[in-house]
């Protein structure tokens, strides 16, 4: 059996706002196995980044988080103290960000930023940590890596900085890499290079990746699994090939209207617009969140709970119609 790296059930994240409690993540289930790349897609504001941040343990202090299960590399995170969670960051799970120009500290050298984590967590000497940094910088395609260690971020291009960020994230040899829109801020050719690099690293290192994106072309290029998120819940989750071949949730079908095909769909293909608006997330909500925009909605769609349907291993849909159509 393949090792499960991340197993989340019923993750909820609420944030107090001026207008009431914002239930941004409303019961998310996610599973990532070793070597998988799970792409989390969905419209802006549906809770993708908050889900990622809760895995990193980096939500703002005032956020309220609950879950039925929250396990990473076999350890129950919900029972861990903040100090223990901090120890897992960088070593079990690492993260890269959307804007590589702002993710590196402008006042510290590249070498310092790459090595500071492992020198603490693994007790490496400066020399050992530098050696690992040089090896990784070389691996992500930074030329002349030894000389780069003493340089500051402002001398590097956006693409180079994202490579450096990837190297930095891999310093602690994490099992899971979270990438929140890692190519959005880069131009198209650089995007392709970064995605290819991530793919290579994944097979070389047996890494699992959780990649957040708006871009169906990115999904087609790199995903092994896809989770489609809508208004704080996972609407549909399937392997990439199944999802592209037979989308089941009306929202997924709407997204795939542009018919992205793995290997064919060009990158830079944004999610197509679906008529209507995302419901507000303040306060409670019953029934299917997508029903107001759904062409097939029924009166039963307003009932709780929305039926869930598991049409095969690892596949999951939350929709009245999809569940009925098959039974």
């Amino acid at each position, binding site marked *: 059996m393949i090792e499960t790296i991340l197993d989340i059930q019923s993750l909820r994240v609420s944030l107090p706002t001026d207008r009431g409690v914002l239930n941004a993540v409303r019961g998310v289930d996610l599973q990532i196995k070793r070597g998988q790349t799970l792409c989390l897609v969905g419209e802006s504001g549906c809770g993708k980044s908050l889900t990622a941040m809760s895995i*990193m343990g*980096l939500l703002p202090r005032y956020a309220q988080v609950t879950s039925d299960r929250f396990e990473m590399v076999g350890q129950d995170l919900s029972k861990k103290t903040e*100090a223990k969670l*901090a*120890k*897992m*960051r*960088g*070593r079990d799970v*690492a*993260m890269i*960000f*959307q*804007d590589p120009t*702002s*993710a*590196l*500290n*402008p*006042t*510290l050298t590249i070498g310092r930023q790459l090595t*500071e*984590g492992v020198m*603490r*967590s693994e007790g490496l000497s400066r020399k050992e940590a530098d050696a690992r940094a040089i090896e990784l910088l070389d691996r992500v395609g930074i030329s002349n890596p030894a000389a780069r260690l003493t340089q*500051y971020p*402002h*001398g590097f291009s956006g693409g180079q900085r994202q490579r450096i*960020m990837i190297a*930095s*994230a891999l*310093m*602690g040899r994490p099992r899971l890499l979270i990438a929140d829109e890692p190519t959005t801020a880069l131009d198209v050719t650089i995007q392709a290079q970064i995605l290819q690099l991530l793919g290579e690293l994944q097979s070389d290192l047996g890494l699992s990746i959780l990649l957040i994106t708006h871009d169906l072309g990115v999904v087609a290029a790199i995903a092994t699994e896809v989770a489609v998120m809508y208004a704080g819940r996972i609407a549909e989750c399937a392997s990439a090939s199944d999802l592209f071949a037979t989308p089941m949730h009306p929202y997924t079908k709407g997204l795939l209207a542009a018919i992205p095909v793995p290997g064919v769909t060009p990158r830079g293909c944004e999610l197509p617009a679906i008529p209507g608006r995302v419901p507000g997330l303040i306060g409670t909500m019953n029934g299917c969140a997508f029903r107001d925009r759904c062409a097939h909605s029924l009166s039963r769609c307003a009932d709780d709970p929305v039926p869930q349907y598991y049409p095969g291993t690892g596949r999951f849909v939350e929709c009245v119609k999809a569940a009925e159509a098959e039974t």
Partner: protein
Amino acid sequence: MIPFISKRLFVALCVCLTVSALSFALMFLSGDPAIAIAGSGGRAEDAEAIRIAYGFDRPIVVQYFDWVGSALVGNLGQSIYFNVPVTEIIGNRVGVTLTLGFISFFVALVVAIPLGIAAALRPNGWIDRIALVIAVSGQAIPSFWLGLMSIVVFGVWYGWVPISGAASWQGYILPVIVLSYYAVPELMRITRSGMIEVLGTDYIRAAKAKGLPMRLVISRHALRNAVLPLVSLAAVQLGQLLSGSIVIESVFALNGLGRLAWESLLRSDLPVVQAIILILALLYVLLTTLADILNAVLDPRLRGAS
């Protein structure tokens, strides 16, 4: 770094020259200095004799370079009132002002920076609110009033500290508190806003994502970036503390430079006024130059830009 520093020093030198020319021109601001020295009752022959004795009859450019030349070797002329070298008078007074200024500056930084950081870590928390009250009251209460009230309460009623003068170190306690109280708000607010801005950046999230403890995230990653705007402000503040303490020196009867400047102005002792203005202006130039260099040490982007 070397090109950056030499460039900064060159700019500083140009400013120094301008400043010296302006303070030299002060001498002639009030009309003919010879008549001023001779006094209102002086005869025309006396004024003429003074003009020749002081060299006012020479071309102005010659006078300027003569003045700069002697200023460079530490001769700032004679006080008209005391008839002793200006440097001697200033030398007697400058210690009080430097002590008061530097201690107040140090106290202000020690209070403002931790308070600003604590306020930024929990915006709208109770520390933030207290800090806001301190800031607002510091900017609203006039310093002479606070100075007088503190003398009445701690000097007269309780008798904890001397009422005036700097004969003992206790004499500095109240003036330092009052003076630093006025420097704290701005320093604290710029620390707070810089810190809040920096704490929201991706590189802080990245630092946390590496598993660094919060203490290191703040000291190594946040503080260094947050103090950049603070450094420039602190330089100006120190300049103000060293030059703008006329009110405090008067209230607490401290014989510092501020008071000397004020008294000399009343006595029309222009060489002294001129020298004080020159010294303070050069001090500002020195401080801002040092601040720029310190910022370049802290922020490699500035070094690259030079």
